[in-house]
């Protein structure tokens, strides 16, 4: 059983913001896919398209084999229960006027899963599962710290027993020490709740820790996609290599790390006027003549290793 997910172009009427332009990937059941890229590369947009918070302007979204791209809100209800979301900002992702037990338990009551007495027990279970004290369920969100609020958000999204969780920068707003806790929590929940994840992040180290596969995005396109080990050992796309090089080195003087680092110059181009041909050619240290004319496709240059770069498409 698997979740194929495909995307297309997202448009605005005044101009076109090519937020996501020709992206295609799949997530297998039980798999964790990390979607990495700089700010503005379209990764959050993909997440929201999958959740049908937006309606994709082109392309299709499949959930458990079913095409959910064109369904109405009412038809989407059963599918919405299977995929949930964790948002980045713990301060605006919880309704400040509701108590924690209502935030977590509302879905339980609305969708009739539990009776009027039993839902509170379920809320207690969920809070315990994410590492919160169930006695605190009558409190308001502002009484909790950022890390705890993210846990509340995680508990809320587990309420309906989803199969897929899309985590949009789940720890970016938290202190570093708390980040590790929350990520480990997500990892441990994976088995207990039979989850598949789409982790969207700009933090490579984080994604490396928890993902099975990684897709690297640049300006609405996937540049490279493969499993974690291979990405870090053998990055093919110039952008991936630059990303890995740009991770600050813990020991600046260490000799063995001091091989040539290719750092990128300039800013990311605007998604309203993307560069012609390969989106990356304006900043690519290995750009060739053809790169500004031809847009590379995402091809499987090795088994299970996709790259979108003309350098690997000779012949």
């Amino acid at each position, binding site marked *: 059983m698997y979740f194929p997910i495909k995307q297309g172009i997202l448009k605005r009427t005044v101009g076109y913001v090519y937020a996501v332009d020709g992206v295609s990937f799949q997530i297998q059941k039980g798999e964790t896919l990390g979607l990495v890229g700089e700010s503005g590369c379209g990764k959050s947009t993909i997440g929201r398209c999958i959740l049908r918070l937006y309606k994709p302007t082109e392309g299709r979204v499949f959930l458990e084999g079913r095409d959910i791209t064109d369904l109405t809100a009412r038809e989407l209800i059963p599918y*919405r229960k299977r995929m949930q979301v964790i948002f980045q900002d713990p301060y605006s992702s919880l*309704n400040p*006027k509701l108590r924690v037990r209502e935030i977590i338990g509302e879905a339980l009551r609305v969708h009739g899963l539990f009776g009027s007495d039993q839902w509170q027990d379920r809320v207690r279970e969920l809070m315990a599962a994410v590492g919160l004290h169930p006695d605190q369920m009558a409190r308001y969100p502002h*009484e909790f710290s950022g890390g705890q609020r993210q846990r509340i*958000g995680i508990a809320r999204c587990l309420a309906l027993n989803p199969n897929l969780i899309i985590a949009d920068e789940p720890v970016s707003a938290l202190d570093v020490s708390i980040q590790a806790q929350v990520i480990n929590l997500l990892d441990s929940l994976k088995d207990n709740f039979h989850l598949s994840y789409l982790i969207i992040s700009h933090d490579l180290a984080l994604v490396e820790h928890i993902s099975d596969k990684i897709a690297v995005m640049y300006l609405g396109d996937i540049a490279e996609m493969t499993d974690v080990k291979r990405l870090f050992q053998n990055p093919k796309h110039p952008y991936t290599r630059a990303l890995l090089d740009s991770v600050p080195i813990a020991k600046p003087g260490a000799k063995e790390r001091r091989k040539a680092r290719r750092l990128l110059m300039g800013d990311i181009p605007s998604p309203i006027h993307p560069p012609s041909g390969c989106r990356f050619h304006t900043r690519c240290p290995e750009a060739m003549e053809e790169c500004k004319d031809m847009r590379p496709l995402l091809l499987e240059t090795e088994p299970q290793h996709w790259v979108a770069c003309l350098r690997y498409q000779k012949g």
Partner: protein
Amino acid sequence: MLLEYRSLQNSLEDEPEVSRFSLLCRKVWQLRLGTLGGIIIICLVFAAIFAPVVAPQDPYSQNIMKRLMPPCWMAGGLSEHLLGTDHLGRDILSRIIYGSRVSLAVGISAVLLEVAIGVALGLLAGYYGGKVDSTISFLVNCMMGFPFILLTLSLVAVLGPSLQNIIIALGVSGWPVFTRVARIETIRLREREFVLSAIALAFSVRRLLIRHILPNLMPSILVIATVEVARAIILESLLSFLGLGIKPPTPSWGMMLAEGRDYMLNQWWLAAFPGSAIFFAALGINLLGDALRDLMDPYLRKA
């Protein structure tokens, strides 16, 4: 640090002169304006509800022999008419107490009506956007272009003066301000992540609007609503003053102002006391509204 604080407090209490006065000042400030507003309003509501008990005299009984008598503390005043009598010999204090019924009834009912219409339209306009929003916004702009008073006056003139019609007229002409605020706040809120989560959890639009967006609108709405209540009371007074309000002899503060207009020079108390009543009512409501808004905010409540 805790020890230092304690010793500071002790030393303050050892010096009687400074501490007593400053303690008093601190207490008055700690009372806070909101409580003051609350007290005013409680008195007002109490007077309105228990008017027959509280009022010393019958507000309708006329006595030409005792007309235009000054308040009790001035020469010629009687203790049975604490605030004097009007041109028909009716006790002013009692009429003010009975008049509070009209003012409160109009103020609160009219604003409830305004809020119901205004917030509902604002929520819809803000959430759905597009054509719904354009239509509603157009309507709001049209109505705000009309002078409020002109609108209200016309409505009362058409419907005829009565308590009910005044409430309707005020309610129907006053809702746009709520729609504007509700719409802007809804637009701001619908992009918030907790609303997106609610959508992802497949909640109905109704639940979204009522359970998630509306409670977060309430602080802004409440602040405006309190101002509007005060305004409604003043408007009712204006309408009564112009003769389009409550029919006499029912006491109404505005009507009393109108009746006292001719006597402003020498028998100033006919107009001054009803006018003060209007002032204090509006003041109390505003203060209370501020305090209520702070109370409703869970963040501030705990602090």
